[in-house]
C-alpha cells in the first residue's frame, strides 16, 4: 500500500492537507492496540511530507533563516573534508598557508535582528577583525584575541539561547577559517560551549568534532614541548631531519621512548604525526617494524625447538615403555 493510500489522500504538495489526513486517520485508530498500524501511518506521513517538499526544492536563502543558523552541519560537512591538508600548520604556523579560498566575509552572514544584537554584532566583528588580518605573517596578539572573545561571550546578551546557539555556530566557522591564528582562543571556546563532550557524542556536528580534536592536539603538543615530559626527548628527536642511519647508541637509548610516543600519537592524536619529520618517522618505523618481525620470528623458531625436544621425549618414552614391557 502506498503512503498516499495509507493516508487516504491523492498525492499532493500541500503539507497541511497531509497532516490533516494523518490526524483524521490517527483519531480513527487505537495506537496501543495496533502499534504496527500506527508505525505504518507515521512513516506514510513522514514520506509524504518529504515527497511534498521534493518536487519544488526551496530556493536557498542567502541570509540563513533562524533554523539554518542553528544547524550548521550541512555546510560544515564539506569543510571537514577539506581539512586534512592543513594539519601541518600545527607546528609551523606561518609556513605554507592554505590558498585563501575563503574570504573573511563569507563566514559572517549579516545580522537580521536589530538591537540589542547590533552591539553583539559589533563585539563579534571586533573579534573577527583580530582573526582575519591582511598581513597573515604577523604573529597573533593572543591577549587581544582572548580579551575580545571574553567581551563577546561574557556579555549578558549571550544568555539568550538562540543568540548563543547562533554565535556558537558562527564562531566555529570563524575559528576554522582563521587557523592557526585562532589557536589562541580555541581552547577557551571549546571549554565554554562544551565541545569536548559533544565531540564524543554520536550525533556530534562534524566541524565541532574537528575543532575539539584540534584543541586536544594543541594541548598534547604543549605537553610534549615541556622539557620534563617523559617523551619530550623522543619528540624533539623526531622533529629533526633523520640521520643517515640510526646508530647503535640511539637505538639502545631512544627506541622504547620513540616506540611509545609513536604508538600513543597514532592511537589518540593521529593528526600530530604531521608535527614530526616524515622521513625520520619512516626510518624509525622501518627499524621498529624490523625488530617486531625479528621478535615474531624468534618466537616461531623457539616453538620449532619445542616440537623437536617434545618429539625426542616422546620417542624416548616410547623406547622406555617398549623396553620395560619386554
Amino acid at each position, binding site marked *: 500500500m502506498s503512503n498516499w493510500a495509507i493516508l487516504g489522500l491523492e498525492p499532493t504538495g500541500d503539507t497541511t492537507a497531509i*497532516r*490533516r489526513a*494523518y*490526524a*483524521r486517520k*490517527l*483519531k480513527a485508530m*487505537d*495506537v*496501543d492496540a495496533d*502499534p*504496527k498500524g*500506527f*508505525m505504518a501511518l*507515521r512513516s506514510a506521513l513522514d514520506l509524504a511530507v518529504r515527497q511534498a517538499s521534493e518536487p519544488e526544492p526551496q530556493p536557498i536563502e542567502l541570509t540563513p533563516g*533562524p*533554523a539554518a543558523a*542553528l*544547524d550548521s552541519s550541512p555546510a560544515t560537512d564539506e569543510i571537514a573534508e577539506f581539512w586534512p591538508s592543513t594539519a601541518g600548520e600545527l607546528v609551523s604556523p606561518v609556513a605554507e598557508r592554505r590558498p585563501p579560498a575563503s574570504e573573511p566575509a563569507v563566514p559572517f552572514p549579516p545580522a537580521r535582528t536589530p538591537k540589542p544584537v547590533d552591539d553583539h554584532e559589533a563585539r563579534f566583528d571586533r573579534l573577527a577583525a583580530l582573526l582575519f588580518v591582511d598581513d597573515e605573517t604577523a604573529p597573533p596578539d593572543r591577549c587581544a584575541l582572548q580579551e575580545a572573545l571574553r567581551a563577546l561571550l561574557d556579555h*549578558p546578551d549571550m*544568555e*539568550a*539561547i*538562540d543568540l*548563543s*546557539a547562533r554565535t556558537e555556530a558562527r564562531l566555529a566557522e570563524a575559528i576554522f577559517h582563521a587557523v592557526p591564528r585562532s589557536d589562541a582562543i580555541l581552547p577557551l571556546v571549546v571549554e565554554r560551549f*562544551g565541545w569536548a563532550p559533544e565531540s*564524543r*557524542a*554520536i*550525533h*556530534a556536528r562534524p566541524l565541532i568534532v574537528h575543532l575539539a580534536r584540534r584543541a586536544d592536539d594543541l594541548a598534547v603538543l604543549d605537553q610534549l614541548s615541556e622539557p620534563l615530559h617523559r617523551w619530550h626527548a623522543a619528540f624533539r628527536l623526531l622533529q629533526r631531519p633523520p640521520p643517515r642511519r640510526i646508530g647503535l647508541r640511539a637505538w639502545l637509548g631512544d627506541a622504547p621512548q620513540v616506540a611509545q610516543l609513536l604508538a600513543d600519537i597514532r592511537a589518540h592524536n593521529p593528526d600530530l604525526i604531521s608535527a614530526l619529520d616524515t622521513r625520520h618517522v619512516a626510518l624509525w618505523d622501518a627499524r621498529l617494524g624490523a625488530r617486531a618481525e625479528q621478535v615474531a620470528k624468534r618466537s616461531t623458531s623457539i616453538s620449532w625447538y619445542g616440537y623437536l625436544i617434545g618429539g625426542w621425549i616422546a620417542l624416548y618414552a616410547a623406547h622406555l615403555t617398549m623396553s620395560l614391557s619386554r
Partner: protein
Amino acid sequence: MIVGIDLGTTNSAVAVWRDGEATLIPNSIGDVLTPSAVGVSDEGAVLVGMAARERRATHPALTATAFKRQIGTQQKLQIGQHLFSPEDLSALVLRALKADAEEWLGEPVDSAVITVPAYFNDRQRKATRRAGEIAGLKVERLLNEPTAAALAHGIHEKEDKNPFLVFDLGGGTFDVSIVEIFEGIIEVRASAGDNRLGGEDFNDVLADLALGQFPALAGIAHDSRLREMMRAAAERCRRALTTGDPAAFSFVWEGQPFETAVTAADFEAAAGPLVARLRDPVLRSLRDSGVVSETLSEVVLVGGATRMPLVRRAVTRMFGRFPDASVHPDHAVALGAAVQAGLRARDAALNEIRLTDVCPFTLGVDTTEFDSNGRMHPDVFAPIIERNTVIPASRVHAFSTVHDNQKAVQFGIYQGEARNVASNVKLGTVSVPVPPRPAGRIHVDCRFSYDTSGLLEVDLTVPETGMTKQLVIHDDEDAPDEAELAARRAALAGLKVHPRDDAANAAVLARAARCYEFFLGERRDHIGQLILAFEAALERQDPRDIAHVRREVEERLNALEGERFL
C-alpha cells in the same frame, strides 16, 4: 477505574478523569499533594506521606525521602528494622495514593497511568512499572512528565498552536519537551533532560552555603542527622527566598541555635553551576526539533522548583521573554496523567484528542569498526532507534560477523548518546548462535521495538539459518518474575501500617515533635505542652475533641514557624 498518578521525587499526586475533566483527589488529610516519604513510627508501623516527611528531620534513620532518585538501582535503604528497595518504597506511596483514590471515588481502583521523567532510562522505567505492580495496580502506561504537563495544558486548546516548550524542573529531575498541537493531535517533537538535577540539588547548595557560616559544625558536616536538619532548614529558607530577601536559615543542633541570613544574590551565585546545567537540554531539544526559540508560542513552567525566582530569571534570560504561568506547577503532571487515563478508557469527551510522544534518547548496540589502517575499534555505539523518534517505533539494522568461523554473535544493548558505548547506559546483552563461515558472510538482523510506555524489546534474526531470538531486556539485576512480585506484594501487605484515618493526627504529632527540636527556651516548653495536650486528647479517643485540639495545635505551630507547606 483508571487513575493518573504523578509519582514525584518530593510530592506525589493522584487524579482522575471524570465528567469531562481531570480532577485531583485529596488524601486523608485533605491535601492534593502527598509527600513521597516513607517512615516507620516508634511503634514500628509504616507511615506514608506528611507524617513521614515531618519525621525526616527528627528521625532520619526511620525515614526515607527522595528515593525516586535511586529507583532502578540495586541500592537498598534501611529504615528501622526493615530493608527496602526504592521500588518497594515507591510501591508504598502508590498504595497509599490508591487507597486515597478508592476512598474518594467509592469504587475499587485497579489500574493507573504513572508518570516518569522523560529522561528516565529503561531500567528506571521498568522499576517504576514494577513498583506499580507491587502496589496492586495494573500500569496501563508510563507517561513522560513533560508530556503529561503538555496534555493538561493543551487539552483546552481548540486551535492549532505553534510549538511550545515545557520546562519541567521537579524535585529530582529536569526535562524539556517541545510540543505542537494541530487538529487535536498533541505531538511531542523532542525531549531532552538531565535525570540527576532538581530542587533537592538546590537545597544541597543552600545547605552547603549556610554550613560555611558555621565553623563549629565543619567537623561533623557529614553527620546524617545534621544533614537532614540542614536540608529541612534549607527547604524553608529556599521557600522564604521566593518572597523575601534575605531569608533566615535557622535550625537547632544539640541544644544550640544556629542562625544566619542568606541573600538571594549569594544563593544565585552558589547555584550558578546548577543553573548552567539547565541550558544544555533546552538547546538540545530546540536543535533536535528544528524549532527556534523566537518562534515558540510559549514557555510553560512545570515542577515545584520552577517557583524559584532564580530559575524564573534564568528562563526569562534564556528565551528573552517571561514564561507562561497558566498551569499549576505542582498539579499539571497529575492532571495530564488523568487525561491520559481518560484517553486509555476511550472517554467520549476525549474523542478528538490524540497524543504522540517520542523516545528521548538513542538506543543501539555495540559494534566493531575498522579504520582506514585496518585497525579494529571495538565498543563503537551503533544507533538503531535515533533519539526523538516518534513512538511506538520499530527499526531494524543488519550486522555481520567480524571473525572467521565465529560461533555466535553477541550484542550489548545500550542507551545514550556517546560514540563509545562505555559512556552509555547498558541495558542488557543478547546473543544468537551462527553457523561457521568466513568473516562478514553471516548477517544478523537486529530489530528494536520501543512501545508507548518507553519499554524496549529486541529481536535477532539470522536469515541464513532462520533462527530467531527475542529478548525483553533482561536487566543485569535479574528482573523478578510474577511469583517474586507476588511475594514482595505479600511482604509489603504484611507490614504493620499506621491506620489511614489516623494520618492527620500522626502528621500533626510529627510536626510538633520536629518543631520541639527546632526551637529553644520558652517556645520549646510551649510546644512540649501542646504535645502533651494533644496526646491526652488522643487518649480520650473522642473524635470531635481530637479534631478540635488538633486544629488548635496546628494554629499554634503555624504561628510559631509559619504555614505548613507541601
